[in-house]
């Protein structure tokens, strides 16, 4: 547990001191969302109807941008090898890095999303479902994305390959995330969709760290 927390705080400090990485994802989230009213026209009804979808898709792409660097720097400077040799099992190392990554890039998205949703004129009735679905969904994105980030370590054009590998696996999260908000907006219960998102989170917690550490280990061998 101490080793887990040590890696978590090391990664968090690295991300925050670098600054740019976490800020890039957040700035991308803000800017990309604000492009939609310009592209689609500012009609409040239209924006209100598609706000949840916009926010979810942009959150998905923002997490993709941030994931690219998840293992890459540690892989290049050799500290990933040191972490693999550490007594802590590799899946837990991955989980600690992911926790730090999510706190620095995922959580700000969850906090910003309701503000952006209101700017897009979404009905406030959908806000709890939006926050809940993002809280459950963005960790899934990090967990699934970690597998892809580990797979493309050392690959030619890895950054271009990553979206192709990961986006198909993201789609179930996107479907249930937006469905939860849509259900809440039309006066239905968002609970079934949130429960399915929770199920996806549990599955990706069970599979993601192991698959990512298996992939990272081969990059090291």
């Amino acid at each position, binding site marked *: 547990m101490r080793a887990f927390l040590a890696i978590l705080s090391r990664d968090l400090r690295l991300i925050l001191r670098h600054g740019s990485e976490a800020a890039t994802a957040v700035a991308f989230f803000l800017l990309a969302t604000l492009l939609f009213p310009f592209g689609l026209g500012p009609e409040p009804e239209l924006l209100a109807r598609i706000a949840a979808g916009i926010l979810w898709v942009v959150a998905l792409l923002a997490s993709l941008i941030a994931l690219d660097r998840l293992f890459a720097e540690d892989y290049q400077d050799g500290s990933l090898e040191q972490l693999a040799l550490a007594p802590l099992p590799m899946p837990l190392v991955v989980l600690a890095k992911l926790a730090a990554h999510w706190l620095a890039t995922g959580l700000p998205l969850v906090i910003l999303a309701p503000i952006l949703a209101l700017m897009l004129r979404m009905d406030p009735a959908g806000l709890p479902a939006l926050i809940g679905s993002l809280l459950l969904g963005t960790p899934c994105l990090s967990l*699934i994305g970690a*597998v*892809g980030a580990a*797979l*493309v370590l*050392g*690959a*030619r*054009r*890895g950054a271009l*390959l990553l979206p*192709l*590998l990961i*986006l*198909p*696996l993201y*789609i*179930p999260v996107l479907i249930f995330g937006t469905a939860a908000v849509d259900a809440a907006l039309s006066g239905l219960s968002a609970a079934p969709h949130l429960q399915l998102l929770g199920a996806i989170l549990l*599955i990706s917690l069970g*599979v993601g760290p192991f*698959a990512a550490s*298996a*992939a990272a280990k*081969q*990059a090291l061998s």
Partner: protein
Amino acid sequence: MHRFASPARFQRLSRRLMPWLAGACLLLFPVGLLLAFLAPADYQQGLSVRIMYVHVPSAWMGLQVYALIAIASAVALIWRHPLADLFAKSASPIGAAFTAMALATGSLWGKPMWGTWWVWDARLTSMLILLFLYLGHMLLFGAFDDRVRGQRAAAVLALVGAINLPIIKFSVNWWNTLHQPASILRWGAPTIDPSMLWPLFVMAIAFNAYFGVTLLLGMRAELLEARLRALQYGRAA
């Protein structure tokens, strides 16, 4: 299982299997197509129901090949079986082709039946995702300078992507959209008449035989390529 790891043994086995598979393919495709043309036209869909005899087996094969790749990938990762990697690499483009064919024939069938080439229906969308999974898998093989690394990475991806298979299979039952629900592989008896079921089965077996033929050809070509590379290294050294 490692008895089959030797390329020579595999070559001998594949040479013995090939005439049978090719024969089955040559025999069953005409028979299946003939049966499909003799099968009664659907009372609702008329003659266009005959697309089914190509569409449904292609869709089955798209899923089946991915499942086989996932199994082969597990074998490759756990036992480091060299032929399993070859299997995954050779099967991937074939599976992608089957998936693309299922999408194309489905689109052709959808136009007269549903009045549209494409809808964002659960089954259609999930088959499209399957196609992208195949593409990612194929690209990952070639993305590394080290071939073994590409094989391992692709194997991990194939295993992770396999989670999507049940989602695709049950998408028509979970989401009630335009695509009709499962009518053959379901609890209880199939809801499709035997006069249509038999041609479908013959076509499905024919598709499997075709998969076997192309797979063996692909794996043999991979083995030859590996030998060629070894010879070139030998000369360069």
